[in-house]
């Protein structure tokens, strides 16, 4: 039933079911793993299993009872999913207070309480510290789940109060299957997305946006041109990001996806240079990449990959997008010049 929606984390599901059947669920979990891997979905199903009012022995939501219906609609009084507002850079204490206010009310439907704290990576110190006392000893019957990408992003005092659950990447076959279920019919495209996703179906789905692949074509065309039109392309790139929406979160998300595409292109070029086969690039695209390799050699390629990853980090650190792109394109223009050898 409801756990089936979670893909590729069967071992975790079994272990949670086993722990729950013995009544030994912890009161606080920290789920870590790359974004798009299925942490939130897992946490929602866990909440559903806990709050389900149906008549069955399984630790699983039945999807029919009023409890499950309210949880799906996000109006279950004993359930709270708190996310950082898109315009904020940090998870602030005001949000934390809202979580605490709710968790310190007695359960309304009598089956316990669940609070999921999404974007736990962005908890600021003030909010994290306000949480410590509750995290250590939540009110009876409550379960707290924090979702983040890595334990390194948390204060040690937070990590030590939670049971850490690590989410492993899905196999490419499984990602391929998820994509097929989500209505992506072209097997070649599916295979490319799965190769790009690094085992995160959410990333693969985000990358399936046709506009991104249009952008990728432009990017390849730009790399093929000699000399590289860096200034012009960074302007075009920025326009593309702005098309994602007014909110900076959407633009940053798209910027990260674009950079991922660029890294994959450079990685494929690197593979060509050492005589391996590219993972994502088509035959036609490979020709362009081989030409680039011939022009500049392997070492500069490695540097460019590193430079692009650096840009990705800058996106995450909320540097101005225009500046990141201009600087990156500048580095690319210089790095791809034959004279640079």
């Amino acid at each position, binding site marked *: 039933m409801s756990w089936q929606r979670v893909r590729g984390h069967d071992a975790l599901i079994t272990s949670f079911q086993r722990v729950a059947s013995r009544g030994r669920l912890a009161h606080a979990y920290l789920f870590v793993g790359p974004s798009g891997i299925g942490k939130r979905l897992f946490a929602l199903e866990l909440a559903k299993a806990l709050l389900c009012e149906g008549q069955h022995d399984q630790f699983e939501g039945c999807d029919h009872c009023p409890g499950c219906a309210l949880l799906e609609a996000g109006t279950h*009084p004993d359930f709270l999913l708190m996310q950082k507002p898109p315009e904020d850079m940090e998870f602030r204490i005001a949000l934390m207070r809202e979580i605490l206010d709710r968790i310190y009310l007695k359960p309304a439907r009598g089956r316990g309480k669940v609070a999921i704290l999404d974007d736990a990576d962005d908890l600021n110190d003030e909010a994290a510290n306000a949480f410590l006392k509750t995290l250590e000893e939540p009110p009876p019957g409550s379960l707290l789940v924090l979702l983040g990408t890595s334990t390194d992003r948390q204060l040690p005092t937070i990590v030590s109060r939670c049971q850490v659950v690590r989410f492993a990447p899905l196999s490419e076959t499984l990602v391929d299957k998820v994509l097929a279920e989500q209505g992506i019919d072209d097997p070649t495209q599916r295979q490319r997305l799965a190769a790009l996703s690094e085992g995160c179906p959410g990333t693969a789905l985000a990358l399936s946006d046709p506009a991104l692949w249009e952008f990728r074509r432009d990017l390849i065309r730009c790399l093929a041109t000699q000399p590289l039109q860096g200034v012009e392309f960074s302007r075009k790139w920025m326009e593309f990001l702005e098309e994602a929406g007014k909110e900076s979160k959407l633009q940053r998300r798209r910027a990260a996806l674009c950079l991922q595409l660029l890294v994959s292109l450079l990685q494929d070029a690197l593979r060509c240079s050492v005589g391996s086969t590219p993972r994502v690039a088509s035959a036609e695209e490979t020709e362009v990449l081989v030409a680039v390799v011939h022009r500049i050699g392997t070492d500069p390629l490695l540097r460019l990959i590193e430079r692009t990853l650096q840009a990705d980090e800058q996106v995450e650190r909320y540097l101005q997008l225009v500046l990141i792109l201009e600087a990156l394109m500048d580095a690319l223009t210089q790095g791809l010049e034959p004279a640079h050898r």
Partner: protein
Amino acid sequence: MKAFCHREGLLAACQLASAAIPSRDVKPILKNIKAIADQGRCTLMATDLELGIRLDVLGLTIQEPGEAILPAQRLLAILREAQENDLNLEADSSSCVVRGQGMEFEMPSDDPSHFPDIPTFNEDKYHEIAGSTLREMIRRTVFATADESTRYSMTGVLWELDGDTIKLVATDGRRLALAQGTAKAHGDHTTRGQTPVVPTKAMQLLERNLQDDGQTIRVCLRPNEVLFRTELAVIYSRLVEGRFPDYRAVFPKKQGIKVTLPVGPFQAAVRQAAIMTDDDSKRVTFSFGNDRLTLLAQGQTAGRSKVEMPVTYDGKKVDINFNPSFLIEMLRVLPPDAELTLDLIDGATPALFRSGSNYSYLVMPLT
């Protein structure tokens, strides 16, 4: 559902229900009112997931039973603006239509199963309290609750119902208000052995619903929730987690000095003295002796104030410091012509103010 309704009746009911609609950002569906029409009755409910209201609409004829989500804000506007008195209401999970002569409004709606139900009040164990008594008791305690505290168990009012007594207690750790009244128990309803704390928000909503004198309120406390039945509605709230401090232990056991203070003049004196306090030093010194009470305050930058009023006390001189707002908040909810008695031991032990036999207010002095 389909119903033929009386505009004013529906408007009054919707206005009452909408008091529970959250003002903050929540799931859009909670900004609405849920209606259930069944067996000749139409019930409206609204909730913010912490508290809720449930009430029956009067003057409504049900043509087709069912459940529906009514968009509160727009429906209220329609009911206010419409000229005629009889309207047709038709709603399902996708739309809500209001028709009158020469007008028709269609609004998108939502799935009623996504809206949590508010429990009904059909208890045989409950307490009955006069509305006016309860209103006064709430006013005299609710201001003393802790707001935004890390001590969550104090963010509400403790209810003690046993036999024919009702006690409400509120504290934020620095002062404590205790109001007492009479109530009538039905079916052995009692809170003995429990410490049910009703959130401040629910107490305020209840107080607003007690404006008409002469009504009797029924209260039922369950382990996790409380239900109030007023004349028109049922108010529901979840209780606060945690243990409320043992308030009986903080009342001083020793006998000290006793001073009688008239509420009105005393409040005036405190307010005057408090003018010279500032954010850094919220402190007024109260000095009793020589049949006089002298209030002294000195702010960092503000200046100095000295206010005197006559009292009947001629014993040993006693000085005690208070945060004046703690006193003003309490004096404000008492009738100005009433009298207070103050029990003092010294400048370092909590001072106990009493008004009649039903109200006690304990304040920690500043040291």
